[in-house]
C-alpha cells in the first residue's frame, strides 16, 4: 500500500501543500510550453525555408509558332527546344558565339520546351501565330531571384556568369522576368530539374499507401487488442504474445522492409515498388503501436462497467462491443494517430521494397509504381542541386498538411467518443 498523507489534520501545513500544488502546475505548463515552443521553432524553420518553393521565376518569351516548324504530321515530333532557342536569340540578337549562346539558353529551364509542346497539343490553332509565353527559368536563375545565390561573389564561385547576370537584369527591367505562383509544384511528379519537380506523385502515392495501411492496421490492431485484453485466457501463451507485440514495436523499421521483401514480393509475388506492398509493410509496422495503445485504453476501462453489463445479462461479446469498446475508443484512436504519423514519416522500410525510387509518372492505382512524400523528401534532401533545398522544405510543409488533415479526422472522432465520468 502507498502511504496516504495525513488528511485528518487539514490546517497543519496546508499552505505548503497548496504551494506544492502550484509548483507542480507551473512545471506542467513549462513542460508543455517547451514542447510547443520546439514545434513552433521547427515550423518556423521549415516554413521560412520552404515558402519560396511555392513561387517560381518565369521568363516571358515571344514564341513564333511558325507553320514550317509543324510541317510534320506528328505535333510531338516538332523541335520545341529550337523554338525556345530561337525566341531567346530574338530577345538578345547581339549574343553570338557558341559559348555565349549556350550560356544564354541556359537561363531557361529545359521544361520550357515541354510547356510549348503542351500548349500546342492543347490548342493546335496557335500554330502560325506569335504568342507571349511565360516559361520557367532555370533553377540557378530562380535561386538568384530568391537571393539564395550571392550575385556579388566572384564569378568562379557562382553558377551564373557575369554576362548572364547582365542579360537577366535586362529582362528584369523589361518586365520579362517575374516571380509567379508555382503551379508545377502541385501538378507534376518528381523531376531532376528543381524548377520542374512537383509533389503530386508523392501525395498520391502517400494517399494510396496510407489508405491500405489504415484499412488494415486499425481494424486488425483493435481486434487484436480486444482479444488479448478481454477474451484471451491469462496464461503463459498470452504473456508470450504480449511480450512479442511489445517487442515488435522495437524492431527497426528497415527489418520490416526485409520482411516485406521476403513475404509479399518474393513469396506472394506482388509487384515491387507499389503502394500495395508499401501499405502492407507499413501496416505490419504500425500494428504493434495500435495494439499496445488499444490494450492500454482497454485496461483503463473500470471493471465496474463490465460487471454491470454482465450483471444485467449481456454476453461477454455484447459487454465488450456495447460498453467497453466505446469507452476505450479515444485511446485507440490516439494509437491510430500516432501509428499513422509514424508510418507517414518512414523511409527505411520502403528502401527494401523498392519505393525509394525515381518515379515520374503519377500512380493511378495501388499496383502502380509509387513513391511516398517522406521518400521524396529524403531523395530531394540528398540531391546536389541547390534548388532542391527549398523544395525539400516545401515538401515537408505538404507532408505536415497531409498529417494534420489525417489527424483532424481522427481527433474529431476521438472527441465524439470521449466521456469523463
Amino acid at each position: 500500500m502507498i502511504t496516504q498523507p495525513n488528511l485528518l489534520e487539514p490546517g497543519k501545513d496546508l499552505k505548503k501543500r497548496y504551494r506544492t500544488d502550484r509548483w507542480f502546475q507551473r512545471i506542467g505548463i513549462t513542460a508543455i510550453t517547451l514542447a510547443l515552443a520546439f514545434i513552433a521553432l521547427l515550423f518556423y524553420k521549415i516554413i521560412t525555408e520552404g515558402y519560396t518553393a511555392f513561387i517560381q521565376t518565369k521568363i516571358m518569351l515571344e514564341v513564333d509558332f511558325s507553320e514550317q516548324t509543324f510541317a510534320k504530321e506528328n505535333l510531338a515530333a516538332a523541335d520545341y527546344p529550337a523554338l525556345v532557342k530561337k525566341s531567346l536569340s530574338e530577345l538578345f540578337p547581339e549574343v553570338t558565339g557558341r559559348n555565349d549562346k549556350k550560356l544564354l539558353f541556359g537561363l531557361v529551364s529545359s521544361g520550357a520546351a515541354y510547356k510549348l509542346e503542351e500548349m500546342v497539343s492543347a490548342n493546335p490553332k496557335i500554330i502560325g501565330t506569335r504568342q507571349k509565353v511565360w516559361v520557367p527559368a532555370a533553377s540557378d536563375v530562380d535561386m538568384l531571384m530568391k537571393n539564395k545565390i550571392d550575385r556579388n561573389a566572384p564569378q568562379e564561385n557562382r553558377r551564373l556568369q557575369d554576362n548572364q547576370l547582365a542579360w537577366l537584369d535586362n529582362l528584369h527591367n523589361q518586365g520579362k522576368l517575374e516571380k509567379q505562383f508555382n503551379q508545377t509544384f502541385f501538378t507534376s511528379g518528381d523531376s531532376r530539374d528543381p524548377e520542374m519537380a512537383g509533389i503530386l506523385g508523392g501525395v498520391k502515392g502517400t494517399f494510396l499507401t496510407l489508405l491500405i495501411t489504415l484499412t488494415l492496421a486499425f481494424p486488425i490492431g483493435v481486434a487484436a487488442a480486444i482479444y488479448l485484453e478481454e477474451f484471451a485466457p491469462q496464461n503463459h501463451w498470452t504473456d508470450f504474445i504480449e511480450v512479442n507485440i511489445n517487442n515488435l514495436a522495437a524492431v527497426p523499421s528497415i527489418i520490416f522492409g526485409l520482411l516485406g521483401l521476403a513475404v509479399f514480393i518474393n513469396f506472394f509475388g506482388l509487384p515491387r515498388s507499389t503502394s500495395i506492398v508499401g501499405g502492407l509493410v507499413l501496416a505490419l509496422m504500425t500494428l504493434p503501436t495500435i495494439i499496445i495503445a488499444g490494450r492500454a485504453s482497454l485496461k483503463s476501462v473500470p471493471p465496474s462497467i463490465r460487471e454491470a453489463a454482465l450483471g444485467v445479462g449481456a454476453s461477454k461479446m455484447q459487454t465488450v462491443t456495447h460498453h467497453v469498446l466505446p469507452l476505450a475508443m479515444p485511446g485507440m484512436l490516439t494509437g491510430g494517430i500516432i501509428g499513422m504519423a509514424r508510418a507517414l514519416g518512414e523511409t527505411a522500410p520502403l528502401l527494401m521494397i523498392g519505393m525509394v525510387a525515381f518515379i515520374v509518372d503519377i500512380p493511378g492505382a495501388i499496383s502502380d509504381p509509387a513513391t511516398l512524400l517522406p521518400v521524396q523528401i529524403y531523395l530531394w534532401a540528398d540531391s546536389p542541386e541547390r534548388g532542391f533545398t527549398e523544395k525539400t522544405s516545401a515538401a515537408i510543409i505538404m507532408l505536415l498538411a497531409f498529417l494534420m488533415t489525417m489527424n483532424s479526422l481522427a481527433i474529431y472522432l476521438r472527441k465524439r467518443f470521449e466521456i469523463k465520468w
Partner: protein
Amino acid sequence: MIYPYIIPSILALSAGVYILGLRRAEKVATYSGGLSELHSLPTHYGVFAALCCAMPALLVLVLWMIFEEKVITSMVAGNLPADLLRQSANELTLVINEVKNVAFGGFTATSGNPAIEKAAVAYMAHLTSARNMVSILVVFCSIIPAWFAIKSIGKDLRARNLVEGAVRIVLFACAGVAILTTIGIVFSVMFEALRFFQAVPLTDFLFGLQWSPQIAMRADQAGSSGAFGAVPVLTGTFLIAMIAMLVAIPIGLLAAIYLSEYASSSLRNWAKPALEILAGIPTVVFGFFAALTVAPIIRELGTALGFTVSSESALAAGLIMGIMIIPFVSSLSEDVIHAVPQSMRDGSLALGATHFETIRHVVIPAALPGIVGSILLAVSRAVGETMIVVMAAGLSANLSFNPLATVTTVTVQIVTLLVGDQEFDSPKTLAAFALGLLLFVFTLALNFFALRVVRKYREHYE
C-alpha cells in the same frame, strides 16, 4: 463484365440478406409469441445470414485472385509455339510479360513475333471468359448458403452463439497476425545471420569490444578478430535511447498530467493534437535540425565549459530524439489518465487532499499500467530510430558512455550496411542481419523483464 465490381456486389448482396434474415426472425417472433421467445436478438439472425452469404463467396474470390495469374498464364503458355517454350521458366515470364504488354498496353510486340500477337488475343479471351465464370460462381456461392441460412432461422437457432463464435475467431486471427509477423521477422533475418556466424564466431560478435567493419572491406580480411564486436553498438543504442527518455518521460508525462488534470478543455483540445504532430514530422527533418542547429550549440557550449566535444555527439541526437517521442508518452498517457473515473478524484478531494496529492496518490497509480505501456512504446521507438542518429551522432562505434562522444546505434549500422556498395554476400552486409537478430533478442528479453515488473506492480495495486 461484373468482375471489377464483384466485391461491392457481394457486400450489397450480404446487406440484403441481413435485412431478409432480420425480417424473418421478426416474423418468427410474432408467430411464436413475442421477441422474448427467440433465442437471440433479431439482428443476430441477420448477421448470421449475412455472414453465410459473404464468407463462402469471398473465400472463392480470394482463392481465384491468388491463382488467376497462374491459371491464365499456363493456358496461354500451352499454345505458344515450341521455340518460345524451349526456355527456362524465368525467361518464359519475359515472353508472358510481352504477351500481356501487347494485350493490355496496345504495344506492338518489340520482337515482332506474330505468335506473341496471337497469344495476346488468346490471353484476353481467356481472361475475360474465366472472369465471367468466376463471377457467376461467386454469386452462386453467396446466394445458396444465404438461402439455407435464412431457411434455418427459427426460434431455437442459437444465432448469437454462432455469430459471437465467428467474431471470436476473427479476433483471435487478428492477434495471430502479430505472432506471424514475429515468425516472419525471425525467419527473414535468421538465414543470413547464420551465414554471418559461419564467417565470424558468435563469441567474437557478442563479446567483442570493437566494431569496425572497415577492416573487413576486402574479402581476404573478413573476420579479422575484434572487427565485428557488437558491444559498442549496443551501448551506443542504449546511451542514446536513455538520453532520449530523460527528455521524453519528464516532459511527456508532465504535459499529460497537466493537460488532463489542470488545463482548460480548450487548451487540451488544441495542445494535444499539436504535440502529436511531433510524431509525424519526418525524421530527416529532425536529423537536419539536430546536426546543424543543436550539435554546434552543444559543441560551443561544451568547449566553453572546457569539455572535449566531438562535432557529432550522442547528446544532440538523444535530445532531439527525445523531443520526437514526446507524443508517445504525452498522448497515450493523457488518454489513460483522462480515463480514470472522476469518482476516484472526487473521493480523494472530498477527503481534503490537494489536487497534487490526488494526482500523486490516486490518479497516477490508477493509470500506471497504461503509462508504463506508453513509456515502453516510446523506448521502442527510440531504439528503432535511424535518421537522426545517422545525421547527428555519426557512424563511428565508440565504446563510451560519454554523451559528448560520437556513438552509433544498431539500427544505423543495419541501414548503412544494407544500402552500402559492398558485395551483398560479404560478411559485412550479413552483419546487418546478425545485428537485427541480436537487437530482436535483446529487446525481447527487456520486454519480458518489463512485463514481469509491470505485472508485479499491478497486482500490488489491485
